[in-house]
């Protein structure tokens, strides 16, 4: 199985990532998710911090857990860090499988996992002031759906 996990400051190309993800195996189905910085109101920027080493290891472990639950041919996770502007893409999760339901479920599982377990922290700048984004109970609830 292809597993590609990257934490990076630069943006990514969906077309290039999908070409790489589907190069091996015979996936008929690819499900993706991208998260984008909100453009609402007074948000001027979002800065993302992570725990180098642990973050990549956690996401790779998540990808392997997904592959143990669903029949997957590949997983790509790219998470950006550093300063992002409204509208910028923050994260990509792409999952390839021979079954579309498996691709969708594994993609959603990985997003819920990223939101609740991967060590990233968001700091928002609004009107010249910065504050750390609080974790949301709804994300924990989403993750709890997947507990065995």
């Amino acid at each position: 199985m292809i597993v590609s996990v990257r934490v990076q400051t630069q943006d990514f190309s969906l077309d290039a990532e999908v070409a790489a993800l589907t190069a091996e195996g015979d996936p008929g189905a690819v499900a993706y998710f991208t998260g984008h910085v909100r453009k609402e109101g007074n948000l001027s920027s979002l800065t993302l911090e992570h725990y180098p080493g642990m973050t990549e290891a956690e996401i790779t472990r998540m990808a392997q857990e997904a592959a143990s639950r669903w029949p997957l041919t590949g997983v790509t996770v790219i998470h950006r860090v550093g300063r992002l502007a409204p509208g910028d893409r923050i994260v990509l999760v792409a999952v390839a499988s021979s079954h579309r339901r498996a691709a969708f479920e594994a993609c959603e599982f990985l997003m819920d996992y990223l939101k609740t377990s991967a060590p990233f922290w968001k700091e928002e700048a609004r009107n010249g002031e910065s504050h750390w984004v609080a974790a949301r109970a709804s994300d924990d609830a989403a993750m709890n759906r997947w507990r065995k």
Partner: protein
Amino acid sequence: MNLLYFAWLRQKIGKGEETMALPDGVASVADLIAHLKSLGPGYADAFAEDGRVRVAVNQKHSGLDAKVAADDEIAFFPPVTGG
């Protein structure tokens, strides 16, 4: 031991990383937090609400009762907000 602080813990404590000898009487994460709180107002503020702080021992999510040893990497951070 190597200690790491992220997000607002880093800001309150004023540094992101420090090396420390295993303090006397410290065997668990809870013991370590109690010790750190005694080191100054920044630490005391960072750990004021234990429930808001998460910990990883050697890059694995851990609880307050996890054991700590002299050569561990121990990271403290808020609940995560990526994705």
